[in-house]
């Protein structure tokens, strides 16, 4: 008998919440390689997936891990892997492959301080642009950023649903703090959780790579004679390695099937944004400091709104633009050296000035006071 977690209240670590959510979402295959600070996901799933008719294996490296996940997905299983920066780097080629072959899968990246081995046990938010552009060639990606243990759970389920809906790899871009901290969380009853499964073809269908924005996806062994390839291919999977039209049609569709649905995919949380003077745009662990920062600013008479991005890619352009039209200035705290700042600046289109607040290394978070002091300093000079 499968043994899903009963609905209720739990005191969980972020990684544990992610692993349990994967089971709830219907994940039946996990392949991974040990890496701090993501290992607990592999450990938890090694124990819990077999109890729920699923398979969890350890592969020889991260390249093989995502390879096995892709194979499992084409065999019809919902599949995922979990890693951190160095492993995420190794996965980039297969992420591109999953995009090109429209293979649904979930990649959990628990960010730590890089580059290279960096500070393996310390948090960071340095993989924002790697998630967006890490694999070669024109493409787009979906990346979600949780800021609590509850969201590690909820956004993991959402990641599976988006992967299945859009037939694409989805990245959960968490960080060491959210992954390792423990918080109370609530798992809802099964009938209150939306679970989406990939669209399957009807007998006789042959177009699994085109014609529709999101084509149906058969599994191997079902009699469809599927030809899956990372080379440029037409709607039936046949390779066309020099035809310009087929290449353009394919790559443009792979991008538009996501970007045309940006409104459906993206999710932001707003707080006190009505008529705010300053706005803080944040995501992940850093966002946890913004609530107090806003209160401190408020006490000084600066009405400060919060826009928290739960989706980084596709970038929630309209939410950011709206913020830029409301506030006199935007503040972007990040535990990296201005990775999302430029994206916010682009989306603001010069409507409001954008100020970065950055800190890296040693696991030191950006404090509410640091954000507050940047806001008061800048707002004064804008008056």
């Amino acid at each position, binding site marked *: *008998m*499968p*043994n899903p977690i009963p609905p209720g209240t739990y005191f969980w670590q972020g990684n544990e919440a992610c692993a349990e959510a994967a089971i709830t979402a219907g994940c*039946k*295959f996990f*392949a991974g390689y040990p890496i701090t600070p993501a290992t607990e996901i592999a450990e938890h799933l090694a124990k819990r997936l*077999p*109890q*729920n*008719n*699923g*398979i969890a*294996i350890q*592969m*020889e*490296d991260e*390249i*093989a*891990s*995502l*390879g*096995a*996940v*892709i*194979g*499992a*997905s*084409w*065999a*019809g*299983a919902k*599949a995922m892997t979990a890693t951190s920066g160095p492993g995420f780097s190794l996965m980039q*080629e*297969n992420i591109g*492959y999953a995009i090109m072959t429209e293979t649904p899968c979930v990649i959990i990246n628990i960010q730590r301080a890089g580059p290279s081995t960096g500070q393996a046990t310390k948090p960071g938010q340095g993989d924002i642009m790697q998630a967006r552009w890490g694999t070669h060639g024109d493409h787009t990606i979906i990346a979600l950023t949780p800021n609590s243990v509850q969201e590690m759970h909820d956004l993991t389920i959402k990641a599976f649903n988006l992967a299945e809906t859009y037939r694409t790899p989805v990245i959960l871009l968490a960080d060491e703090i959210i992954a390792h901290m423990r918080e109370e969380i609530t798992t809802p009853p099964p009938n209150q959780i939306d679970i989406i499964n990939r669209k399957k073809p009807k007998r006789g269908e042959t177009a699994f790579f085109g014609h529709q924005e999101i084509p149906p996806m058969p*599994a*191997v*062994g079902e*009699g*469809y*004679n*599927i*030809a*899956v*390839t*990372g*080379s440029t291919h037409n709607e039936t*999977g*046949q*390779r066309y390695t020099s035809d310009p039209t087929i290449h353009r049609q394919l790559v443009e569709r792979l991008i538009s099937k996501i970007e045309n649905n940006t409104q459906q995919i993206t999710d932001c949380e707003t707080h006190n944004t009505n008529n705010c003077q300053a706005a803080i745009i944040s995501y992940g662990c850093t966002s946890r400091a913004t609530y107090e920062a806003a209160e401190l600013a408020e006490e000084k008479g600066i009405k400060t709104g919060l826009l928290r991005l739960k989706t980084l890619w596709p970038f929630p352009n309209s939410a950011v633009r709206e913020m830029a039209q409301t506030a006199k200035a935007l503040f972007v705290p990040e535990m990296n050296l201005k990775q999302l700042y430029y994206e916010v600046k682009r989306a603001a289109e010069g409507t409001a000035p954008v100020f970065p607040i950055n800190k890296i290394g040693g696991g030191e978070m950006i404090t509410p006071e640091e954000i507050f002091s940047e806001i008061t300093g800048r707002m004064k000079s804008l008056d």
Partner: protein
Amino acid sequence: MTEKFSARRYLRDIRLPFCPGCGGYTVMNCFLKAVHELGHKDLSNFVFCSGIGCAAWIPSPHFHADSIHTTHGRSIPVATGVKLVRPNLSVVVFGGDGDLVGIGLSHLIHAARRNLDITVIMVNNMIYGMTGGQAAPTTPFKAKTTTTPYGNFERPLDAARLVTTAGASYSARWTTAHLNELEEAMKEALTIKGFALVEAISQCPTAFGRRVGLKTAADMLRWFKENSVPLKRAEEMTEKELAGKIAVGEFVHRELPTFTDTVHEVLKEATENA
């Protein structure tokens, strides 16, 4: 077998991409003949995984079957995922020497170590053929290639022996000059439970032969025949005597627990006890 063998029965109607004289045709034909003689009327029970390089094109997209053409060297990890989720399907990996023992070597060793229940057909043409003839981990010592114009500094890797040591159920090496043996080995590999490798030494007159004085496919096949040594005899020869020779035969043929069975036994137990 009463029905006459025709490779076309198993192929999509697409022109094959191989150069004239390529050993890929031979390997394809031997494999499909093995499939035919094992009584498969079609390939519906198979999934083919392949990576990058000429050999990867043997199944993909030419076989009328499910085929997954993966990134370079990663066909075995993808096959691992497929096999674990669909254990009843026969999962076959096709790849060249560069794909399987160059960039993808670690996956080959680990799959053999796990005794993952798949068949790997490795077409060893001793060169990176698709990119025009660069040295591979299988290129003979001192051989001239486009990236070793003064001769190859490195000694070639012995894949058939390597997977034997790693824990495979089955491993054999033949050449494209040994049609019957190659086909029989493929039948064994497709039948045995566990990891099975068939290494087919194959001619690439276009990117390799013509640079080492073997201009045509016939020259290369003659070279294979003259230099092949049965494994038993090879084991009695010194390393010096074996230089430039090709040891052919069955390296291992044994029953071992398979990865797929073990994983699914554990899964069953865990589900029952949950």
